């Protein structure tokens, strides 16, 4: 079914098969592979440590707090950290690259879909990430005002929390989503390159 050996193919193979330093490549692969696995496990560990540290710190503050509403707000924030870790672990597959041993067509589609799933993760960040912690902090600001009766402190807390979480929300919704959409577009363009 294939065409017989031709000039185009002779030209293609004309350079011959260059020597590959197999020992050198093997050594590099073993090192790189270990390094790659280390990076992945470090990233996973970092997420858990960050969440656990937040939960422990705010859990401790809740335990030590005398005022009921302040205690509830700390406990709420501690629970939010645990919820975020749970959510990230549950959806961690969304960050994984598609398997490369599938057919090129299937890989291309899977890569496109994985960008779509990551966009979904960022778009919903306002619900699973921003909202739980933000609502706990709002409760904390109100509890602080109730104890101290200081409108200045209340305003400072409200502005700080809203600006910070507004920025996080913008990072996810705007910058993050735009970045992923650009990657998706590059992938689509790659398929059309040269046309």
């Amino acid at each position, binding site marked *: *079914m*294939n*065409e017989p050996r031709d*000039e*185009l*193919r002779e*030209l*293609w*193979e*004309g*350079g*011959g*098969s*260059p*020597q*590959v330093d*197999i020992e050198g*490549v*093997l050594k*590099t*692969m073993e090192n*790189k*592979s270990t390094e*790659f696995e280390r990076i992945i496990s470090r990233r996973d560990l970092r997420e858990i440590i960050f969440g656990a540290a937040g939960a422990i710190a705010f859990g401790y503050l809740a335990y030590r707090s005398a005022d009921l509403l302040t205690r509830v707000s700390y406990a709420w924030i501690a629970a939010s950290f645990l919820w975020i870790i749970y959510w990230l672990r549950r959806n961690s597959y969304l960050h994984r*690259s598609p*398997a*490369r*041993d*599938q*057919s*090129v*067509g*299937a*890989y*291309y589609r899977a*890569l496109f879909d994985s960008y779509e799933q990551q966009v979904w993760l960022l778009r919903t960040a306002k619900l699973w990430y921003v909202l739980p912690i933000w609502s706990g902090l709002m409760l904390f600001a109100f509890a602080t005002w109730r104890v101290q009766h200081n409108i200045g402190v209340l305003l400072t807390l409200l502005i700080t929390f809203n600006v910070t979480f507004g920025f996080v929300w913008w990072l996810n919704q705007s910058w993050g989503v735009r970045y992923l959409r650009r*990657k998706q577009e*590059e*992938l689509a*363009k*790659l*398929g*059309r*390159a*040269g*046309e």
Partner: protein
Amino acid sequence: MNDREEFFRRLLTGYGGALQRLVSCYEADAALREDLLQEIYLALWQAIPRFRGDSSERTWLYRIAHNTAISASISRGRRSKREHPIGEHFDPPSTAEPADRRIVAEEERRTLFEAIRQLPLEDRQVVTLHLDGLSYAEIEQVMDVSQAAIATRLSRLRRRLTDSIGVGEKRK
């Protein structure tokens, strides 16, 4: 030596040249080509434990190589796509060939790779697999494109490549 290492050695021995030609169809710049080659080696090394022999070793290798190249192209933002082929390097052809013919052949080879790099992604993949001697059935397994579509596409691509490099004409 363990099985993984043994298998990897066999892949490099059998397909080292093919992988070098493949990366030349994605990257014009020598340093980027070397980076891509390293990425492909790493992807193969990591995929070996999952290889169950459901497809042939050859189609499995080409799937991983092309998929890694797609991924790398996106990561690099296609910055190298239309770069001038600085550092384009091919291995010295046989010295048995007369010098003038060798120069012409090398120039034609350079032009062929440049012409392939200008093709849309799918066309580029089909043509490189074909030139590496894969059958239509094997190309179908690698690409997930029907054999009829491959045949049509190849006849158009071969004409286009032959025209762009003028194979044969310069030698007449």
